[in-house]
């Protein structure tokens, strides 16, 4: 069956799910990705979710696409939580040992980021170790203090993640409702067909009796 959509877009309910999600793109604005994010990873997540549905309708595809976006947001916000902690650690390091004026916060932040990811060079690692030693802190001490400092901002990100979970729950319920509706319609069609065939059989037997 073909759904005729304006400006020449056709959605075939029997077409592969990948094509269905693409056919909805001109109608609904698609989720945008940040410059450093992988489109392929996003699409593979979407296809993974769609493959779990048995012949999804265009509306179900649209909802699954929104659900995939929510999962993507959870991922982004989880990364942000770690970045917030790094931001607070860099701030503490810059302040430590009365070096607020001499150590550039931006420079410390970048160096610490590389140090924590294990991508920093020897000089940079030595520099961070030196600041840590001057401020009489270990990396775990610094992390604990930073967590305390950034607790308010981390709570904000937790709220954002919680909101995405709630949205996923709503979308999931909507998808279930569409699925139930389509199964109900199918069942009613079958029952109607069975009734019609029964009626026609009765009609034939009545004709036989009257003749």
């Amino acid at each position, binding site marked *: *069956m073909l*759904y*005729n*959509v*304006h*400006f020449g*877009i056709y*959605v075939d*309910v029997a077409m592969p799910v990948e094509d269905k999600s693409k056919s*909805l793109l*001109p*109608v*609904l*604005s698609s*989720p*945008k990705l*940040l410059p450093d994010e992988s489109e392929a990873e996003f699409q593979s997540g979407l296809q993974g979710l769609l493959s779990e549905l048995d012949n999804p*309708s*265009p*509306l179900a595809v*649209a*909802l699954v696409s*929104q659900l995939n*976006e929510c999962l993507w*947001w959870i991922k*982004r*916000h989880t990364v*942000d939580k770690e*970045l*917030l902690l790094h*931001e607070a650690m860099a*701030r503490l390091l810059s302040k430590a040992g009365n070096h607020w*004026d001499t150590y*550039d*916060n*931006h420079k410390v*932040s970048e160096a610490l980021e590389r140090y924590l990811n294990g991508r920093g060079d020897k000089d940079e690692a030595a520099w961070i170790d030196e600041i840590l030693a001057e401020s009489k802190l270990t990396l775990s001490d610094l992390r604990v203090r930073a967590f305390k400092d*950034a607790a308010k*901002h981390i709570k*904000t*990100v937790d*709220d*954002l993640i919680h*909101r995405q979970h*709630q*949205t996923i729950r*709503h*979308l999931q*319920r*909507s998808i279930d*409702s*569409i699925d139930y*509706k*389509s199964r109900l*319609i199918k069942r009613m069609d079958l029952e109607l067909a069975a009734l019609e065939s029964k009626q026609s059989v009765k009609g034939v037997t009545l004709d036989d009796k009257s003749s």
Partner: protein
Amino acid sequence: MTTNPRRSLANQSNALKSTGPRSVAGKRASSQNSRKHGLNSAPDFESSIEYRALVDLIAGEGFSTFACADIAAGLLNYRRVMDAYYDTYSSPEPVDEFLRDANVKASNPIFSELLGPSGSEPQDVREMAAFFASMQRQERRKGGPVSRRSSDTHKLIRYQRNGTARLSRAIRQG
């Protein structure tokens, strides 16, 4: 580009003397300054091509005409909110590194020079320094780029909640 502290301070103190836009075009442009995401304005989905396309698409799924209209509007509204969510997240308020890291106490000679002969009273210089110190405190309280984008996005939570509830209700009642 390197920031010249003297230039930066001069720009900020000159900006304080500004009396705002004078031309009609300037006033029109500045009237939109406080517009953040546009989610409080009532959208007109019904006249859009996307809306009609969606209604046609949903009609094939056994929903009533009213339900199709509700679902299509709900979907477009949800996308509007999520697009604003992305825009807010991807373009947070920039960090004013100069203001954040400036040593206000050491800038007193620059303030007195900027104020010129008319404002050479120590009181004027102290007031200007206090003003810059309060601006610096505000800037530092906002945190770095990640905390800024998180708190900006947090303001859109209620729009997302309402958008999701509207869409979900339209589908389940349809």
